[in-house]
């Protein structure tokens, strides 16, 4: 009997440890300063920016994003090559262990493609972010006029 209780106790401890780990992983990522650039009403594409912080001891990557306001959200990177501003689609954006990845003009951005309506300055847009390690995060990105962000 005592042996059974001991086995159950050890099993319970393992379960709690598992839950605890999962919970830490879930909160391993925090998003700061998330905003979407307001553009002309007829513009079908725009960009979203944010800071992704990784509070865990292992590397995590953002692999996809989606929102109801558009057809598709892609991960894009801007870089200057041969004096030209070059944009390219990337498969993931790595957030280093205990570090951060910054999505900012001239660097990474969420490319929001095929807007199905005009965005109003000040409104919050729900965006779902999918990370490696099965981490999903739903965030709200505020629509801002680019002029105020320079």
């Amino acid at each position, binding site marked *: 009997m005592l042996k059974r209780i001991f086995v159950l106790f050890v099993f319970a401890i393992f379960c709690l440890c598992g839950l605890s780990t999962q919970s830490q992983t879930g909160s391993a990522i925090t998003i700061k300063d998330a905003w979407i*650039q307001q*553009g*002309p009403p007829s513009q079908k*594409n725009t960009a979203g920016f944010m800071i992704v912080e990784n509070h865990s001891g292992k590397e995590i990557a953002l692999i996809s994003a989606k929102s109801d306001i558009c057809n598709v959200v892609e991960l894009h990177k801007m870089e200057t090559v041969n004096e*030209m*501003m*070059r*944009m390219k689609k990337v498969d993931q954006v790595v957030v280093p262990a205990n570090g951060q990845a910054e999505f900012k003009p001239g660097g990474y951005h969420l*490319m929001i493609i095929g807007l199905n309506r005009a965005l109003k300055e000040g409104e919050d847009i729900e965006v779902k972010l999918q990370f490696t390690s099965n981490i999903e995060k739903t965030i709200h990105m505020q629509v801002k006029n*680019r002029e105020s962000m320079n």
Partner: protein
Amino acid sequence: MTLKMHKIACLLLVLIAVVGLQSCSASSGGTVNTHNHSGHGGDFKLIDFDNRPFELSQLRGKVVLIFFGYTSCADACPTMLSKLKRVYTELGDGQKDVQTVFISVDPDRDTPAALKDFLGFFSIHAIGLTGKKEDIDKVVHQYGASYELEQSDSAAGYHINHSTYLYLIDQTGALRNQFKHTDSVDAIAAGIKQLLK
């Protein structure tokens, strides 16, 4: 070499160093950028966003800012146009004598109407220009700008990689300067003010 000659040589070296430092400090002050633009610039003809023929010579007497871009651009173009709005604010009364000219390097997608809608959003004194690809390419080459169309598997379609210089044209139509997209509002405004004096 005598002791006196040594002292004179040292004094001369110090003098050269001071003048050199002052010169560096002046150029990093941001009022004038010195990116090489020799041999570039000049008049050109394209189509404006009202579907009318446009010649740069129409703008004689005004300071002109020329930028090459495209309306689907999600980053560099909105950044520059937003920056220019702040430049205009900084120019105060002088802004009425400053005309921005946005030349599309994406004539297939940028109709005159699309250009007008895009530029109207930024509320600056901007004219949008388009035209035949060969005519646009001629102007791009004339100003030493560059762009290239890059096929992509993005849902946004092809990308256009492009240079992001802002060209400063004086009241006689001569190219006087070119700013980088990273130059500050103050630096661009100061460069324009020099021509408005």
